[in-house]
């Protein structure tokens, strides 16, 4: 059978297929399982079974949770800013979903088209400023939290929003500078290039361990997870920015948090753990391509587990301590790291 498709149309079709695949993976496969995993892992850590009644091993718990939340009454308090109140959960969810566009989730898959075999790279959009695109998006994600906090017209929510904005600013710089080391090493801002460099040389986590530590901590701060979940801090701010939210709007915040978590894990995997690559293994052909997707998924899942593990282990920082840590420890560390990497690269004459 011969397909008659023009080149742009074929590319557009490919992009749509990739987008659908990535979103299906995150929204339909990863996200519900993550809700389940969070609760099961917490159970494991806390010497208790965790949800184990709905479906095998309680796997359908997420479905039950979402159904329950959807059926709850959607309360919109009287004196909220209605437009922003409605928009805020959406703003939280969107950046995370769009982040996946530039993350290479596998090597490539050969597809025969118009009689010629071509390798289709497994990334939705190979943007030449890939990482900046991700940083730009993650910096926008905070608006969801800030606006939710402000529009709720509730002092606790407001404090949550204020905390979130201070936190994001404190950690964004450190995150950017620590990641810059990766691009200096790879010589490109493109994420596929970063992965390929790591495939050819060494996973970045080894030579750039300091950068990795700073980046990982900053990622925790950006995703608002313990020990940085200050904007939510249920013991201090009741529920922080989502105190006034109920029903599906509340569920959207949760989906946003988990989608952010998955995106963050994917980014760390890509930047520091070789993305889809394994040292010494060449992923070629259809099966190689599929295997590389699996490798990427496993690495991402390992990182997600780390997120869960930390959440159920550490206490939470205080607002000023968190800022102090960001500005006085991690920012200088990331500077130092950046200069060290740049000096090394310059000295080695590349």
């Amino acid at each position, binding site marked *: 059978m011969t397909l008659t498709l023009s080149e742009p149309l074929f590319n557009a079709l490919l992009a749509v297929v990739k987008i659908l695949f990535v979103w299906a993976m995150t929204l339909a496969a990863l996200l519900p399982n993550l809700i389940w995993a969070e609760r099961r892992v917490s159970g494991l850590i806390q010497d208790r079974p965790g949800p184990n009644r709905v479906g095998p091993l309680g796997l359908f718990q997420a479905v039950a949770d979402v159904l329950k939340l959807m059926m709850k009454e959607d309360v919109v308090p009287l004196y909220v800013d209605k437009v922003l109140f409605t928009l805020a959960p959406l703003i939280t969810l969107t950046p995370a979903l769009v982040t996946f566009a530039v993350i290479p989730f596998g090597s490539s898959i050969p597809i025969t088209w118009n009689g010629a075999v071509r390798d289709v790279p497994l990334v939705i959009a190979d943007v030449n400023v890939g990482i900046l695109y991700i940083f730009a998006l993650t910096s926008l994600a905070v608006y969801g939290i800030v606006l939710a906090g402000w529009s709720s017209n509730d002092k606790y929510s407001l*404090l949550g929003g204020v905390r979130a904005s201070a936190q994001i600013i404190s950690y964004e710089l450190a995150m950017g500078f620590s990641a810059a080391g990766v691009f200096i090493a790879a010589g490109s801002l493109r994420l596929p290039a970063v992965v390929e460099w790591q495939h050819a040389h060494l996973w970045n986590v080894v030579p750039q361990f300091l950068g990795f530590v700073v980046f990982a901590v900053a990622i925790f701060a950006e995703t608002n997870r313990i020990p940085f979940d200050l904007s939510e*801090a249920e013991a*201090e701010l*009741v529920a922080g920015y989502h105190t006034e939210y109920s029903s599906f709007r509340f569920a959207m915040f949760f989906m946003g948090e988990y989608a952010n978590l998955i995106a963050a894990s994917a980014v760390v995997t890509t930047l520091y753990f070789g993305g889809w690559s394994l040292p010494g293994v060449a992923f070629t052909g259809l099966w190689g391509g599929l295997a590389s997707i699996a490798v990427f998924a496993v690495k991402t899942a390992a990182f997600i587990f780390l997120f869960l593990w930390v959440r159920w282990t550490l*206490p939470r920082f*205080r607002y000023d*301590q968190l800022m102090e840590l960001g500005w006085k420890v991690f920012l200088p560390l990331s500077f130092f790291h950046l200069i060290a990497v740049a000096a090394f690269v310059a000295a080695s004459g590349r």
Partner: protein
Amino acid sequence: MSTTTPSPTLAFAPLLERKFGEKAAPEARPAADVPTIAVDASALHDVALFLRDDPSARFDLFLDLAAVDRLKLAGPASYRAGERFAANYLLYSTERNEHLRVRTTAPAADPKLPTLTDVWWGANWFEREAWDLMGITFEGHPNLKRLLTHNGFVGHALRKDYEAGQRWLCTEEDVLQTDLAAQTETPEDVFETLTLNFGPSHPSTHGTLRVVMRCDGETIVAAESECGYLHRCFEKMSETHTYQQVIPYTDRLNYCSPMINGSGYARAVESMLGVEIPERARAVRTVLAEFSRLMDHMVCLGANLVDIGALTNFWYAFQAREEIYSLLEACCGARLTSSYARIGGLSNDVPENFVEWCRRLVKLCHNQIREVDGLITKNRIAQKRFRDTGVVTKEQALAWGFTGPCLRASGVAYDVRKDAPYDWYDRVDFDVPIATEGDNFARYLVRMEEMRQSLRIVEQVVAKLPNGPVNSDDYRVVLPPKEMVYNEMEGLIYHFKVVFEGIPVPAGEIYSYTEGANGELGYHIVSDGTGRPYRVKVRPPCFPLFASFEKIIRGGMVSDAVATLGTLNIIAGELDR
């Protein structure tokens, strides 16, 4: 009742007599009670200063103010007129390990007393309570407002001529509008401050407490705390019940460690009666009191750690607590509100496998403490959150009337179990942990170590647990066994009298104190010789803790206030009574 002797320990008595003459005289008291001096209201303030500052007295800790309405108490006619109200101030000298009661009177018409808040700041809320419930005005008190009842309340509930059946509506205008809230709209020079209403149902108040804070950003510049949301006037209820029937009420004071409350109360009544309880009952009370203390600390630490974000410790702590509850359930059938102690002993004997069970629990508790210890004690984030926050200095702790772990964390080694041993505490070897920093971390560490010491006590007592009955054989006090009731005339009569008339406690007064999980738990009981107490006044250990909360958190951040509230361990049940 034991013999009445003039208290021999009052070293300052001669000096007191020289300075104040007739106006302050030691009173004859039963040996079981604390020494007392009767002071004329006009000299009260000077006597208080003398007692606090004189080197031979040094009563540095204000424990309690128990006001008694003597309207219906048998006695001279002055009880109906000029000396109707008795105010009993309970003091403690940490230096000389001595309790003292200062008793003064106020007339029926417009009762007024000078305030002692400037002598011991800790008297603050106690005086407010006495004004609220007894209607005694304290002249010069900085903030004499209703405390346990609401502003719509009419009358003073603990007066003997107050009809208990009345209802008063609390309308929105009557809800405490604090001065802080009223000042919200004042513009500051640079920034506006924000009034934050913290509680009464806030996730970290763990009960119903309310604090109104004024925050600059997140720094607390002023605060005012309020309690009374759980007030049920347990003390008024006690007056209409027999002595035995009060025990279930005591479970609801500090519901985290009900065994301590119950046996503390029973011990107070037993010392009024002069009843000795069997050794086995004493030993079991000691074991269960220590397990209760452990549970209380577990709840306190677990919840506190949840408040600073370390959720998992809660489950580690609560697992031990659940297992201890199972032991309590095996002993008396109830988990939370045990009501196990009885005046004269215990409701029934412990299960056969009690000793092995205790040993198993000790092992489990050690394990759970180790888990929490490993996760938190050396954790940098936990240290950052706890160290140098919620600091209470030794002087402050004494002035504010702290007792228990919070006082010991500020460097004062006062523990009733050591300083006035009861039950089996003089027969076991244990240490009283203290810390000097007085911050949240010190309180955390003190509680952690106290749990280990409790386990030590349990191990020692269990190893020597004697056999025998768990109840006194004095059937005026204890219900006789069923076969005696059914087969003998005396048995039936005893049973009838104990159930219908209650235990005839001889007329008198006592202040009996035990080491509760939160500090000194005092029962001030007045008996008129009938089967029902004339007046029961509880000294809840966390009452002065919460009273000073607004002072501790000033200058800190909202997150510190949450951590501090947790380490102080405020239990609304005993706070509001």
